């Protein structure tokens, strides 16, 4: 196959020129970090909102101590998780690549580890606390409903939690890991380019 040999030689000899300047790359990477920061902020805002909504349940007149205990546990779990989210947000918010590239990349790596922990060990504490809180909360509440509504409430609540803990969590871990790893790679490459230019 003489002709295919020509194609092979042509392929081997050609180089792909990626005409992206380090400035453009930096601009793009910074935009990605900003998006990540905004998403993180939105996440914190959402958690804050659910904190307020759950805390508002106290405005209703509950008689049983289990309901109050349930709300307290849920509110505490949300508050702790929100604080952890905020601390993670601060890791990427406080450093800037253009000021200190080395520190920024190491902070980004720390953020990646923290996010991984958030979706693993910490997530289970959060899920267990929420389940416990929900169980306690439901003791009084469910007595007002008939049996079918009680079953529906329990199945929907725990079904939703299982769905989040399995499919959603796994997808979030993968997406998060890929996104941060790509950012780290981009910034390391930009850092390398700056070193070459110096």
């Amino acid at each position, binding site marked *: *196959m003489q*002709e*295919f040999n020509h*194609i*092979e030689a*042509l*392929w*081997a*000899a*050609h180089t792909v020129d990626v005409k992206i300047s380090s400035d453009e790359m930096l601009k793009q990477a910074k935009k990605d970090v900003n998006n990540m920061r905004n998403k993180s902020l939105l996440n914190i805002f959402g958690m804050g909102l659910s904190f307020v909504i759950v805390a508002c349940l106290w405005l209703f007149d509950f008689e049983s101590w289990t309901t109050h205990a349930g709300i307290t546990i849920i509110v505490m779990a949300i508050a702790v998780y929100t604080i952890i989210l905020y601390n993670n947000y601060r890791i990427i918010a406080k450093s800037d690549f253009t000021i200190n590239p080395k520190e920024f990349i190491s902070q980004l790596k720390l953020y990646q580890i923290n996010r991984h922990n958030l979706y693993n060990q910490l997530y289970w504490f959060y899920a267990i606390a929420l389940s416990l809180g929900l169980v306690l909360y439901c003791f009084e509440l469910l007595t007002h409903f008939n049996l079918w509504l009680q079953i529906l409430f329990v199945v929907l609540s725990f079904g939703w939690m299982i769905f989040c803990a399995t499919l959603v969590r796994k997808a979030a871990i993968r997406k998060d890991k890929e996104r941060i790893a790509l950012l780290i790679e981009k910034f390391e490459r930009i850092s390398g380019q700056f070193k070459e230019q110096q």
Partner: protein
Amino acid sequence: MRSEKRQAKDELTENIIENKIEEYSEKNEQVALLYKSISKLEENDRLIITMVLDELPYNEIADISGISEGNLRVKIHRIKQKLTELYNQHARI
């Protein structure tokens, strides 16, 4: 004598540059043709041939494509023929 020599050298340099530019644009044209031919292949065939051209070992390509090595060899032979045919077709136009 000195100026003659210098002139000759200048002419030679210009010739070299001209030849290089021609050679470069011809190569570029061929590469563009190759890309065009590859783009005409089916998606799977395109992936396989790109891996072949990048000199990936057959066992790795078989792993990635999810087919047996024996099947892969047959497939590669067929894709090579198809690509060469496409390349020649485009080159004639």
